[in-house]
């Protein structure tokens, strides 16, 4: 009798299945297929992680920005292949004399994906929307907070002061004071222009903190921008994001009709998928694989380094580090040439200062501290710090463009330090699991960390490191010159004239390296990007901000 029951169950199941099947089929016939005018192929990119959501304003990580960058544009853009600021949705911009009022002339031929016109009102709507965030939005709107300092509820501390549409295609943005970051910061993906109508309808600002994460409003899943691609769908079960070509794009329309981001968290799997031909490219290939990838007909696009890896020192944790001789000794002890050659990818360079040479304000006269263990020992002896103990830490479970494999870099540095008699006490923590906390809380004497520039600005590098006296990882407040350095940096940042500003930063860079040496810049590493055979038109960006509208996928 149990047999009968089973048969009955199966029969029901099959019937149900048949019904479902017919429904599904009709559905499929209705939708699908349509869309693309001329089929120029699909570009499939292997992403390392899932995007957070699709509203760039709340986004914080590269995987999200990579997707939104294809759909959104800012007032200012970046020249493909460089860090140079170029016009995008704004054709011209002009400050007033004291650099507090900026007039932007906008393109007049742009519409959002939903057909809404792009104009000065839309710009101001966007800025006011970003400015006016609830509590959750203020923390989630990470980049605005970072570059603008505050939101509407704390307006006087905000760099942004207001936006006015003075003409249909002319908007004036007022800021509290001149800074090197403005208007360059308008190239930030987070500050992209979005459709006012869609923002309104999707309750874009309705973000809420829930548990330890944010729950995003409907808009975050249905973004509307002006870029060469429009949002298609996000297949969560299969980890695929599909974008479609925007055929009404104001510029040259994209070459491929469809752009797909496939989430493949495992590095070696991304390579294998590329070789199997199921993806057309992925970011940050393991340097070890570069040669092999090239041999197999792929092209590895090496970007110019726009980052810095440094060995941070904290004099508050270890008072011996207050002595410049000790810091210099440690610097001389490091065989950075060997490290760069043997552990970092081709194109990596020994750092002479805390920023890469692509940033204005780079001091070309600085020479790398030479590797000289004898000098190191001598300096240590002079400082009475022979055999000093050093708590030296590195992060686990992380790979950054400036340090593909932290442990390897750490091990090399540690070996060098031990060679001059420093007793290293090794500490580690995982990147998300306390390493950064420990660094900011000053629990390590020495640590490795780095920075990738957000945009072309010296202050984005050294200002981030030393500009905030109270809260910086280098503990510069413990040095007599700490305050001076912070003030100098702020002063230089406020210089309106670009050339003057550059000169000021050059000087500060020289001081930092020769007189202060608050930490030890190690190297700049080039992050790479790889695309498969037949893929053309990828322009590697030092800011890792590639746009895929120029990409073509050829048959093999």
């Amino acid at each position, binding site marked *: 009798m149990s047999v009968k029951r089973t048969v009955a169950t199966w029969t029901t199941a099959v019937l149900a299945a048949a019904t479902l099947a017919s429904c599904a089929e009709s559905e499929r016939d209705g939708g699908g297929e349509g869309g693309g005018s001329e089929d120029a192929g699909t570009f499939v990119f292997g992403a390392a992680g899932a995007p957070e959501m699709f509203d760039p304003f709340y986004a914080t990580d590269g995987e999200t920005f990579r997707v939104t960058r294809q759909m959104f544009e800012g007032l200012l853009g970046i020249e493909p292949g460089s860090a140079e600021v170029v016009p995008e949705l704004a054709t011209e911009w002009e400050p007033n004399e004291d650099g507090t009022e900026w007039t932007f002339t906008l393109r007049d031929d742009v519409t959002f994906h939903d057909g809404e016109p792009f104009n000065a009102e839309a710009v101001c709507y966007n800025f006011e929307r970003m400015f006016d965030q609830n509590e959750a939005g203020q923390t989630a709107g990470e980049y605005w907070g970072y570059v603008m300092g505050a939101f509407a509820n704390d307006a006087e501390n905000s760099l942004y002061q207001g936006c006015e549409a003075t003409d249909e295609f002319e908007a004036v943005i007022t800021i509290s004071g001149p800074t090197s970051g403005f208007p360059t910061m308008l190239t930030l993906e987070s500050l992209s222009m979005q459709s006012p109508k869609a923002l309104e309808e999707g309750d874009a600002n309705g973000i809420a903190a829930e548990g330890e994460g944010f729950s995003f409003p409907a808009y975050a899943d249905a973004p509307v921008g002006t870029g060469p691609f429009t949002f298609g769908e996000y297949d969560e079960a299969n980890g695929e994001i599909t974008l479609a070509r925007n055929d009404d794009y104001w510029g040259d329309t994209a070459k491929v009709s469809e752009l797909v981001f496939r989430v493949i968290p495992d590095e070696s799997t991304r390579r294998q998928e590329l070789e199997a031909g199921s993806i057309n490219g992925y970011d940050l290939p393991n340097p070890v694989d570069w040669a092999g990838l090239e041999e197999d007909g792929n092209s590895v696009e090496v970007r110019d380094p726009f980052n810095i890896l440094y060995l941070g020192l904290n004099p508050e944790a270890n008072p011996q580090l207050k002595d410049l001789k000790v810091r210099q000794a440690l610097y001389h002890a490091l065989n950075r040439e060997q490290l760069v050659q043997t552990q970092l990818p081709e194109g990596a360079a020994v750092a002479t200062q805390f920023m890469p040479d692509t940033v204005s304000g780079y001091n070309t006269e600085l020479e790398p501290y030479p590797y000289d263990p004898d000098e190191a020992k001598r300096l240590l002896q002079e400082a009475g710090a022979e055999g000093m103990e050093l708590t030296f830490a590195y992060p686990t479970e992380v790979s950054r463009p400036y340090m593909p494999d932290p442990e390897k870099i750490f091990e090399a540095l540690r070996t060098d330090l031990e060679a001059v008699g420093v007793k290293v006490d090794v500490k580690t923590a995982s990147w998300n*699991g306390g390493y950064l906390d420990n660094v900011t809380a000053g629990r390590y004497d020495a640590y490795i960390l780095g920075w990738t520039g957000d945009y072309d600005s010296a202050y984005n590098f050294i200002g981030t490191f030393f500009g905030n006296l109270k809260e910086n990882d280098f503990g510069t407040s413990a040095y007599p010159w700490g305050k001076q350095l912070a003030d100098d940096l702020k002063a230089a940042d406020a210089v309106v004239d670009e050339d003057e500003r550059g000169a000021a930063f050059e000087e500060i860079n020289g001081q930092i390296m020769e007189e202060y040496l608050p930490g030890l810049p190690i190297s700049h590493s080039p992050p790479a990007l790889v695309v498969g055979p037949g893929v053309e038109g990828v322009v590697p960006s030092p800011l890792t901000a590639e746009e895929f509208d120029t990409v073509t996928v050829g048959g093999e």
Partner: protein
Amino acid sequence: MSDPIDPAVAEDVRRPSYGQRRRDRIDALAQAGAVDDTPGVSLIRGAWLRLRRNPVFLTGAAITVCFVVLAIIAPWIAPWDVTARPLLDEVRPQTNPVPGPQPGHPLGGDDRGRDLLSRLIVGSRQTLIVGVFATLFGLIGGVILGTIAGAIGGAVDSLVMRIVDVMLSIPSLLLAFTVASLARSPSQWTLIVSIAIIQIPIFARLLRGSMLAQRSSDHVLAARSLGVKKRAIVFRHMLPNSIGPVIVQATLSLAVAIIDAAALSFLGLGNPDQRQPEWGQMLGLAQRYISEAPHLAFYPAGCIIVVALGFTLMGESLREALDPKTRR
């Protein structure tokens, strides 16, 4: 004529519950070696006689002995210091990420120019340390819990056993992840402890089972009737007699510990300090080089497989030899 249900039979019907089979297996093992009132010598001797002719056991034992000896003498026979980087200057991340075999370095080097052969050899020692200590800690924890439960009995017994059952009911690797990710600063010891924790319930159950079996056995009853103190009975009679199944389980646990250590390393929960090599860690790290230098993965993986197999073969044949069923 009435036909009542035989009470002995009713007693015989055990009600299974989740984790039951796993428990049953452990319990069966507990009884296998423990309850034997005939002089222990004949049991062990009988087992040894069977084992001596068992090729499976001999293979396992040979592998195990080689491994242990290698682990002990490793630093003396390794041609290079494992932290030295003799081949570092050859390393170029793109063109020559892993130096190949060459005179003096039969297996070549690793990604930072250290001699691979030496690291494999010395790795045996760390691997053994992980396996042995994980098993040892698990054993100690298990002995404490099992002894408490088995010796005291009653409410304490059921409380301890509830805890043990809950631990047994969580898939073991998951438990290890959980513990490993709890660590503030991961190290070899967090790895060892997290693997040890998954062994605790197994040993606890094993010991308790064999203690319970012995509580009613003749020599314990005899000792008790002679007025021997309870503690003395536990430590002098019950514990030593439970040693057989514990050894079997420990042998098997060693294999599991070595494999689990590799799995945790693979998931990034292993020992982040790579100065002292360990096979699981070497295998986990080799994933980065899998396309260009798969041999970095194959050597440690081969070592792990062979050693784990050795312990398993030995443990399984020991278990069989001590199993009263196969003895008849």
